[in-house]
């Protein structure tokens, strides 16, 4: 366990600071005041210290810089040193722009959609533990809270698509809902496996579990981690599953008719949701604030932020690399591939948990479990893919070559040499 002291200047635990402030308020004012101020401090702490800077400088600036790097170009480099003020300039620009509403749009719904979209993003961070005592709302069922709240923006996206009264928007909205319904199922089944293994639904509890056995859940359940990543990128509409905003197909999906700061809210909070998903992944799979004892020397919240950003980087990376799947392929992938794997993972993990509890094997056995699970996961993924008809070796990636012009060259013509 980390040994942060209770002094306010101990930056390994920022909750000291808020405690000192609250104690000070309590000593001078009525106790009700402290109750009012406490959530405010918590909100300011995680939102202004973590969410907003991460959103601006990783989500907006970092993403553009990193993708620029991948695409052999520079990215924003004009506003401020190294272009660091670009997100602020963008925000100012968006505030100045007119937010158009089409004449035939459903004004009320279209106006309300961004608000419905923003509110859950803020709620999501409430249950994320930034450090041993740095959690805004230590809910016993934080896992369920997170899953439930992260399902809400789908409603807002559907409102946006419906209210815009635009065919592209409606397509986007339809796709969002279909995706969300499909991908929630394997996602929840995977997280059920996590809850079974860690024996708790509380997010700080899951982190403590990983710190105690000295092994992160990503090693114990690589399959769950992989499926979680795929499912959240589908739900967040990140490439390769960004079909709801597929630029080359349906222009901008449910955002087609939005402009100005209304669009800015959607854009900013998309990043917010991606950050929340990254923070959740860092908590559940990457050990949260724990780092094999390092958290006693480095502030745990810094470790946590680093892990979150690392996970977010993978989002950026896939976005810069992969093409997009078609909507029916994505649905088929969720139901035919991810769901059976999720069931398999749940079964495997539950069996191991039972064995662990019944046979009284001690904590060291988790390393054996991890080795078994990694091997079995690889076998399961490969085997199930083969069963579904995946045959990579039958795909020629170079064309045939003909020496002379002529007519049609049949596929079995040896002269063309099918490479």
């Amino acid at each position, binding site marked *: 366990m980390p040994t942060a002291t209770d002094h306010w200047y101990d930056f390994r635990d920022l909750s000291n600071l808020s405690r000192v402030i609250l104690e000070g308020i309590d000593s001078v004012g009525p106790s009700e005041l402290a109750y009012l101020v406490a959530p405010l401090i918590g909100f300011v702490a995680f939102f202004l210290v973590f969410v907003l800077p991460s959103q601006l400088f990783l989500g907006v600036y970092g993403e553009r810089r990193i993708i620029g790097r991948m695409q052999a170009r520079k990215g924003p480099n004009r506003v401020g040193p190294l272009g660091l003020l670009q997100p602020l300039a963008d925000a100012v620009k968006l505030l100045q722009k007119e937010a158009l509403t089409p004449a035939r749009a459903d004004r009320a719904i279209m106006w309300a959609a961004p608000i419905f979209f923003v509110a859950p993003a803020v709620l999501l961070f409430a249950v994320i533990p930034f450090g041993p005592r740095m959690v805004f709302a230590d809910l016993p069922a934080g896992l369920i809270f997170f899953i439930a709240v992260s399902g809400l923006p789908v409603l807002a996206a559907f409102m946006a698509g419906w209210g815009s009264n635009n*065919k592209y928007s409606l397509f986007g909205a339809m796709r969002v809902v279909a995706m969300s319904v499909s991908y929630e199922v394997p996602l929840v089944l995977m997280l059920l496996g996590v809850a079974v293994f860690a024996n708790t639904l509380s997010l700080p509890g899951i982190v403590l579990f990983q710190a105690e056995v000295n092994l992160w859940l990503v090693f114990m359940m690589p399959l769950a981690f992989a499926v979680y990543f795929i499912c959240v990128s589908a739900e967040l509409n990140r490439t390769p599953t960004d079909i709801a905003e597929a630029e080359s197909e349906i222009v901008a999906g449910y955002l087609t008719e939005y402009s100005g700061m209304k669009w800015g809210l959607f854009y900013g909070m998309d990043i917010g949701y991606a950050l929340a998903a990254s923070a959740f992944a860092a908590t559940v799979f990457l050990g949260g604030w724990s780092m094999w004892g390092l958290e006693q020397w480095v502030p745990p919240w810094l470790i946590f932020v680093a892990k979150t950003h690392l996970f977010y980087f993978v989002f950026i990376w896939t976005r810069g690399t*992969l093409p997009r799947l078609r909507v029916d392929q994505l649905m088929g992938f969720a139901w035919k591939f991810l769901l059976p794997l999720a069931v398999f993972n749940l079964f495997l993990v539950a069996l191991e948990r039972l064995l662990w509890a019944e046979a009284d094997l001690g904590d060291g056995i988790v390393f054996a479990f991890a080795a078994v699970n990694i091997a079995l996961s690889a076998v399961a993924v490969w085997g199930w893919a083969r069963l579904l008809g995946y045959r990579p070796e039958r795909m020629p990636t170079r064309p045939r070559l003909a020496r002379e012009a002529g007519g*049609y060259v049949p596929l079995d013509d040896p002269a063309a040499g099918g490479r």
Partner: protein
Amino acid sequence: MNDVVQSEPFVMNIGPQHPSTHGVFRVKATVDGERVVDAEMVIGYLHRSMEKLAEERTYTQNIPFTDRTDYLSSMSNNLGYCLAVEKLAGIETPPRGQAIRVIMAELQRLASHCMGAGAFANDTGAWQTPIMWFMREREKILDIFEMTSGARLTCNYMRIGGVAFDLPPGFEERVREFIAPMRQTIADGEGLLSGNEIFLARARDVAVVPHELAINASLSGPMLRGSGVAWDIRKADPYCGYEQYEFDIPIGYRGDAYDRFIVRLEEMRQSLRIVEQALDGLPGGPHSTEVPLALRPPAGEAYARIESPRGELGYYLVSDEGPSPYRFHIRPPSLINLSVLREMTVGGSIADAIVALGSIDIVVGEIDR
């Protein structure tokens, strides 16, 4: 309430302002959910009446017009037109002029395929990365064009009887420097996309054009070769001395969007081979023959065709011994390749329709002229 849920097809406009129509082109797609049940193409948004305008100008003055038909491959268009005029007037091009033309046409094919393959990757959702890599190489080609002709996009470099200027000093080194990175970029693009499962899922067996349909619809270029038909004007009806260069015709397997993509990548490799050979054997001598400024070809007609990046580009000219053509007609490969779009899209989803359109690699300036 026995009919609770009713659905009916509705019309969705893809274009003329849409990120994936590659210009002002419009598809009126009737969709039933995600499935396309009918597609109607609407063209003409970029019509500039070039064929009629050309009847009022001299033969030399028409060359800049051809730049602006297929604006992504102006060199090829120049070449096709000049060949037609030379055929009409019986003008010979000196060997050096022919070799320069070959180098320029092949560089232009590379530049155009960079754009075509990159934009196709964009259409499948590979968000900007492959296209930016290809654009980096395309910039180098445009730089080479700039140092040769003074212009990057609308080069206006070919002349009747040769080319406008001889190659500038340092040209050969510049092109040779460009070849190795270009090869690497083709390999990179291939590595990023060709074996990618998602890309395969998107492009394999999508927008299939069987070889019978390809031939019946008079397709040409990568569209035809993607369907497995070995046909290339450079081999079948050589011009500019293409018969002395060694290269192969890449052909696809099933005629799907993926085949057309890999055929384009392989054609880029073959073009590099041709450029290298042409540079090695670059003859000396004049780059152009003397042609009277007000050319009056003998009465008659001529049709010259070349293998442009998009397919068979033909120019048909009729002369009445006047200083300007009596009739000037272009056979644009994009328009004729586009004619099978309905067959390619109906029955697939909207996403497939975008991939089908991207795999044709149209240039609207050429379709509407």
